[in-house]
């Protein structure tokens, strides 16, 4: 049987925690760069830890840029994956996939707000979406990032680190979270569960 979730291998380390989180939800997942597997999966996750430029190069090398742009099933971007789904990132001024409008900006380093932002932030829900169903407004999620996408009309949830930024954005069949749901305790597990729907 085909795994339910295809996780796009964008070259970053630390995919294991995502695989384990899906496993805990009883969902089969595969880490892949195979275009056919990605196109036919019921759900697709674009994770990412590391630098935007490296990840975009990796997607280009594996011929996945247009594959991702034309996906029609629900797609979830996580952390750097969220930034990759947007137009661009200020990190080394890299052009990204251009699916969700917006450009990732460097977080401003301020005395009480160290960068990277590493930790649990209370996250305010601003729009309803089935992926955020039954998640309490103000729930804490775990963030690990130096860049963030500004709040826009596609924003579903907002967090703040000196300035407000988009915690969750959605555009058509694409949804993306700046935090790591796989490391965000029960609130994160709920988000993944909502995204997956029925496990198999």
């Amino acid at each position: 049987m085909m795994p339910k979730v295809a996780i796009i291998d964008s070259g970053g380390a630390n995919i294991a925690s995502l695989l384990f989180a899906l496993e805990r939800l009883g969902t089969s997942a595969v880490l892949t760069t195979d275009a056919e597997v990605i196109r036919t999966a019921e759900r697709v996750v674009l994770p990412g830890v590391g630098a935007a430029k490296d990840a975009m190069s990796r997607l280009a090398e594996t011929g996945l840029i247009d594959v991702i742009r034309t996906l029609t099933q629900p797609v979830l971007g996580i952390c750097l994956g969220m930034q990759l789904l947007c137009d661009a990132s200020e990190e080394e001024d890299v052009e990204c996939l251009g699916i969700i409008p917006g450009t990732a900006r460097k977080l401003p380093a301020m005395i009480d707000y160290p960068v990277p932002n590493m930790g649990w932030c209370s996250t305010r829900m601003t729009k309803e979406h089935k992926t955020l169903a039954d998640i309490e407004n103000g729930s804490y999620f775990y963030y690990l990032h130096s860049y963030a996408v500004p709040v826009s009309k596609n924003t579903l949830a907002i967090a703040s680190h000196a300035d407000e930024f988009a915690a969750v954005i959605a555009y058509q069949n694409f949804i993306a979270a700046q935090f790591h749901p796989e490391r965000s305790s029960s609130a994160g597990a709920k988000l993944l569960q909502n995204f997956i729907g029925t496990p198999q």
Partner: protein
Amino acid sequence: MGDIIGLAERYCAEGADELVFYDITASPDGRSVDRSWVSGVAAVLDIPFCVAGGIKSVADAEDVLNKGADKVSINSPALANPTLITELAKRFGTQCVVIGVDSREENGSYSVYQYTGDPDKTKAALRLTVDWVAEVQDRGAGEIVLNCMNQDGVRKGYDTDQLQTVRAICSVPLIASGGAGELQHFRDAFAVAGVDGALAASVFHSAEINIGDLKHYLAEQKINVRI
């Protein structure tokens, strides 16, 4: 192994925000950690965790991160080879790279120590703590765990003076380590020294302090915590 997983699950259920797994004997013995347990921990935890000890190269770090750890913490190997910090930050991003600093007060200033896992091998790193903290940030450290050795194991409270001194020059997250014995010590680390996190081991291992109770106390003290 079973003990590690059981303990990890217990802390996670109590409400810990992050776990750090130390093999403090790894560096002095010149050996590395047996890393099969990292996957076991990653499979049960839904909170972030960091692995410290015996990570001497980019390949070591990659192994740990691929097994599901979120961060690696480097101490003695960073002192022996500071370019390791730069390489790790470049390869994995600064958010993966934690630098552990063992520091103690001497003649009115704070100095760095290395190989602190073994009393016979512990030695001064011949660096001032503030200089080293500045350097590791320049090299791409994403977080600093400051272990204040004067306080370590004595449970008289975190060294808020030293933490404040380092906080003033630290623009990445700073984690207090060494000295926690009572609830108020945690409050002081946040409210007085302004750290981003507080790390403790013995008071949690012995169950003298329950993490859930601690967080409720901190919330009452107007410290921003995830309950």
